[in-house]
């Protein structure tokens, strides 16, 4: 299984904190986002990706605590048991 964790505005939008998805061979962050979108009641992927499918600034995506921008981005491969976190941090102070 893959565990998805949602924080901040993404959690409020989806009205849920977590989602579990069955892992499949060849899964990447991008593929899992597509499956998560199908399972979610509210469209949310457009908040994370722009029209060209590139990550938008604003929401940090972590795979097993590592930011995907320091892994292989949306093409980061996923293993069974991985945890993905989606977190839009506040910048103000």
């Amino acid at each position: 299984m893959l565990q998805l964790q949602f924080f901040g505005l993404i959690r409020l939008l989806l009205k849920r904190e977590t989602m579990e998805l069955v892992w499949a061979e060849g899964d990447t962050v991008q593929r899992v986002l597509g499956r998560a979108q199908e399972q979610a009641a509210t469209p949310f992927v457009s908040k994370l990706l722009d029209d060209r499918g590139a990550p938008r600034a604003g929401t940090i995506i972590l795979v097993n605590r590592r930011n995907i921008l320091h892994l292989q981005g949306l093409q980061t491969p996923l293993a069974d048991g991985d945890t993905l976190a989606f977190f839009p941090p506040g910048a103000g102070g």
Partner: protein
Amino acid sequence: MSTTDERYARQVLHWGDEKQQQIQQSSLLIAGVGGLGATVSQLLVRAGIGSLYLVDDGFLDWPDLNRQTLYGEKDIGRAKLPLARERLNQINSATRIIELHGRIDDAFQVPAEVDGVADCLDNYRSRFILYRALAAGTYFVHGGLHGDNGQVLTLLAGHSQPFDEIFAGALQPEGSIPVTPDNVVVIAGLMVNEMFHVLWKTPKLLDRCLVVGLADFSMASLEI
């Protein structure tokens, strides 16, 4: 009972003499004395922190007054740093306040004596620079907020994932960020609670981001 004992009597009832002594013997850097920094520094001074280094290059403006709890209308147009020092000294003259003028840029040096750093900044660029300036073994307590949401996270420089790697891709909005007095004080209070525990070597949020939502009074933990 001495004046010092009287001043801290109510908190010592809670955490005891030994922890109070640790606070009074400690030194912290507060990066930014705006929304978060004004309240963080004020609470630390009220608690009896030994020394506070303050860094900020801003001047007080009307939109600051909704949340920057050290300042008032008569301060508009004045530099925040000397104002903060003046007000903090009025609250507790026993705390040594040191002003560090200027921006946090690549030349910025963190004073060697500090036991920890409070990130009360309002932009990620400066936060990244500040974190890179830390000596290994320095605790860094980050706070940030936007509207009803906010977060607090503690990192240990040289041991934790670097701050700029964790927050790569974080959005720095163009223009003003929505910030309310209530959320600023909530996040600042959580930061101060964590900073006490950093001083006592028992941080609760080391490599764990506390994500706070006032919209539904939620708190969630994001392991980093």
